[in-house]
């Protein structure tokens, strides 16, 4: 039987197995190879909240999805074309994400009696046969047996041999999708450089998996996915959390500005702390505090001392920080607060995604407390928007809340590397010292410039001794003041200072479609990829719809109101119960309509497209 080679425009593959099966590593290797092949791609890991959930159970299933193609790819894919399962639990947990008629590659050794029982299938169940009967193509491979066969000459103990199963499977999938193995071989040699026998075993399993694809006749088709038209440049894969950490470091390095991170571990934000902890030589100091409040107040202390204070957390941690954010607002010091949102309220679904902290960012503090708010739209965008957030915090002496979420924090996509030389330093100048004799009258820390920004006067500077605090300040002197008119004036100044940022950010532009018309879709945050794909497909199918995506939320770009007013209807899809939609209606008096689902998972392209078409035709 000859094997047919088929060309595909886009493919989605999901690897799934037990937490101990090396699924994340397998997925990331497939991702790197696919990137090197020139495809555009997007990935998302899906792992259990428990560190070591019981082996073989549905709770312990770890997944990794990659969507790649010869065209622009914006999401990890709604559903997958191919599902690779290492055991029965992985099938049970993931079958619903497979397209009807899709391919299942199953490790039959993971479907024994015990595996079925752990996965809570009926003891007499035959899930693979059932899948065949439901129209799926099921490729059955006894991966355990094949790997043991492949490595029987190595003399390695069975435990080490079985750990190479994932490489055998990766080899099969490399063959199926016509991918080269070199990158993974290089990776294995490096990873196991101190254990060459293990490296050799993994490489042999990988190659034998590939050969298995050629030699056996279980596949009737093989696929290629051509390179995508991608902007020329040097690329790497990047997760949102890594991009945030790199941007903070780049700001420190380019601007010669010390950065101080105060943080307390919390899912899904901890990776930013981990990454920055390794970059002390770049002028980044990290501090793991005793709690969320200590983390942010330490950052405020550091900002008072001339560092850019940064704190990273997720919704529940941000809730604890609110009083401190208000303090920073009163002190008028630069501060970056990163909220990697997760599904709430309370502990909620810590490893799942949501964008339900927008109103918290806008309004979640005592008193009139304006801060700047920005949101990242994709893993790679986390770099640019974090850089912007740092710039605004320093140049406008204001706390900036940056919203990302678990989906883009852990998801990855190719990122075109910026050149360090081309990154613009953040501009700042500490207030200059005053010589002896000049220090009367006292230094006035709240004298403002034309943008209502006060000077950054740091301890250690002669003649600038002054006191700041959470009590209302007297205009210019910064002394305590209970004067009613002064309070009104300071409230107004702080608001104007935030609003003036709009003069220093780009105007809002259209991502898709014309500048006016019947329907505008407007989104913010991690929904970018899904909305972009849905709108693009709707336009391809002849519907008239435009799309714009917000990255600057407070203040909004100054042309946003005009833009909204040029459309008859406005659709605001959000993974919350309707938050941006409230703010748009409030600020612009437009009849915006929400599309809201709060399920802990990203929107599918299909559901958004359905909604768009429904609105275009009703």
């Amino acid at each position: 039987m000859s094997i047919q080679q088929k060309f595909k425009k886009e493919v989605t593959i999901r690897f799934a197995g037990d937490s101990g099966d090396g699924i994340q590593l397998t997925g990331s290797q497939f991702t790197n190879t696919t990137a090197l092949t020139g495809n555009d791609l997007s990935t998302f890991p899906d792992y259990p909240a428990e560190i070591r959930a019981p082996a073989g159970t549905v709770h312990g299933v770890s997944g990794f999805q990659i969507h790649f193609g010869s065209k622009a790819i914006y999401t990890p894919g709604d559903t997958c074309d191919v599902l690779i399962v290492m055991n029965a639990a992985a099938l049970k947990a993931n079958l619903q994400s497979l397209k009807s008629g899709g391919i299942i590659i199953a490790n039959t050794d993971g479907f024994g009696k015990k595996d079925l029982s752990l996965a809570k299938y009926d003891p007499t169940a035959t899930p693979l046969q059932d899948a065949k009967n439901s129209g799926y193509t099921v490729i059955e491979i006894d991966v355990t047996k094949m790997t043991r066969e492949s490595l029987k000459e190595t003399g390695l103990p069975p435990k080490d041999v079985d750990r190479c199963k994932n490489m055998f499977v990766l080899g099969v999938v490399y063959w199926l999708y016509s991918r080269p193995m070199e990158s993974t071989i290089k990776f294995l040699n490096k990873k196991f450089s101190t254990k060459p026998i293990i490296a050799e075993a993994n490489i042999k399993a990988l190659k034998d998996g590939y050969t298995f694809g050629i030699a056996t006749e279980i596949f009737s088709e093989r696929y290629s996915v051509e390179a995508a038209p991608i902007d020329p440049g040097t690329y790497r894969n990047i997760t949102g959390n890594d991009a945030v950490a790199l941007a903070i470091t780049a700001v420190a390095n380019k601007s010669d500005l010390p950065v101080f991170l105060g943080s307390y571990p919390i899912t899904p934000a901890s990776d930013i702390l981990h990454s920055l902890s390794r970059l002390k030589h770049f002028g980044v100091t990290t501090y793991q505090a005793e709690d969320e409040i200590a983390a942010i107040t330490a950052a405020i202390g550091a900002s008072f001392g001339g560092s850019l204070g940064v704190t990273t957390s997720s919704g529940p941690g941000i809730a604890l920080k609110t009083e401190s954010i208000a303090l920073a607002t009163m002190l008028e010091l630069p501060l970056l607060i990163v909220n990697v949102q997760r599904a709430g309220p309370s502990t909620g679904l810590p490893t799942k995604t949501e964008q339900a902290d927008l109103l918290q960012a806008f309004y979640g503090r005592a008193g009139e407390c304006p801060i700047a708010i920005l949101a990242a739209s994709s893993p790679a965008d986390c770099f640019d928007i974090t850089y912007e957030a740092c710039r605004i915090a320093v140049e406008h002496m204001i706390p900036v809340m940056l919203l990302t979420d678990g989906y883009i924090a852990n998801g990855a996509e190719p990122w075109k590397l910026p050149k360090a030389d081309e990154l613009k330093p953040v501009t700042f100048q500490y207030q200059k010292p005053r010589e002896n004799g000049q220090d009367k009258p006292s230094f006035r820390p709240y004298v403002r410039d034309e943008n209502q920004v006060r000077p950054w006067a740091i301890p250690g500077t002669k003649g600038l001794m002054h006191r700041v605090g959470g009590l209302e300040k007297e205009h210019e002197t910064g002394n305590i003041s209970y004067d009613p008119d002064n309070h009104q004036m300071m409230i107004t100044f702080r608001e104007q200072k935030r609003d003036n940022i709009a003069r220093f950010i780009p105007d809002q532009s259209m991502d898709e479609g014309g500048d006016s018309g019947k329907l505008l879709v407007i989104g913010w945050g991690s929904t970018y990829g899904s909305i972009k794909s849905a709108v693009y497909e709707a336009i391809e199918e002849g519907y008239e719809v435009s799309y714009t995506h917000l990255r600057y939320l407070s203040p909004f770009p100054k042309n946003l109101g005009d833009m909204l007013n040029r459309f008859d209807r406005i659709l605001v899809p959000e993974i919350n119960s309707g938050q941006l939609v409230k703010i748009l209606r409030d600020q612009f008096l437009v009849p915006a309509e929400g599309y809201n689902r709060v399920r802990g998972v990203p929107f599918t392209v299909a559901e958004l497209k359905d909604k768009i078409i429904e609105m275009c035709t009703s």
Partner: protein
Amino acid sequence: MKSQKTIDRAPTNGERKGKDFASDQDVRWCPGCGDYTILKQVQNLMPKTGIDPENIVFIAGIGCSSRFPYYMNTYGIHGIHGRAPAIATGLKAAQPKLSVWVVTGDGDGLSIGGNHMIHTLRRNLDLNILLFNNEIYGLTKGQYSPTSRVGHVTRSTPMGSIDNPFNPLSLALGANGSFVARTMDRDPKHLQVLLERTHLHKGTSFLEIYQNCIVFNDGAFNSYTDKSTRDTTSIYLEDGQPLKFGPDDRHGIRLDGYRPEVVDLQKGDWSDDDLWIHDEKDRNKAWLLTTFFEDNREVGHLPRPFGVLFAEERSTYEGLLQDQIAAAKDQHGEPNLDELLAGEETWVVT
């Protein structure tokens, strides 16, 4: 009281005097408040430290004591309730050369900010913490505090407090504080000496200051200052000296195993050689000293110790942090941002 460890008087910060460290703001504590004495003694200490005012920062939380920074002509932050040690930690870690002082109270530092207090003590940044203990909430107008005694009738405890109070020095020592000391507002000389010691100690210094709240808890510490009682209620510690107190130092304290015992030195049964010799570096004995905490209304109670109960030099957090930063720079050399951005694997699209 004598001490060899006071500052060698060689001020380098010009010819400044205490009043040069007063800010231009009117001090707004109640007339007769113990805070005035403490403010004056801290201002008087400043010229002796030799540190220029621009290199000194006072950080406070919320409460009567926490208004302190506004009255010092240095840098200062009046922060939020309980968080002064955390704010100070960030500032000191980022700017290790600054002299950073934390001013807090029994409510601010031990109740709402108790967590930051214990973690700051264990980390041992070179901070000076002044805890004004008046055993009451003053600014919120008279509720009981975590140091109020059992039975204390306040606005929130009309039938008397049923909360067992903190022993602040046991708490500080238990949190592995490296400098644990006690003084009081009514003894300005002792206060001045202890402030000097607090400043000189490299590490987190924890100085508890008994401070009289004239409005809501007047006279809480009278028995330690009244001429008629102070001889039997208090004992002043001197490093290397035997523990003696009472009129003409007639009483001594000896250790019977781990049990402290008050002895009469004038009867001839005991002499100085039998007494407990104070050793500031002895953590176990310091622990015993912190437990001299009985209610002084009880018969046969041990005297309340004033002075430095424990002092030990050990590594500071910011020192270790600077070491790690230096080691990272040695290991990695000149930072290369392009390399960092590129990560482990890149590909080129042409």
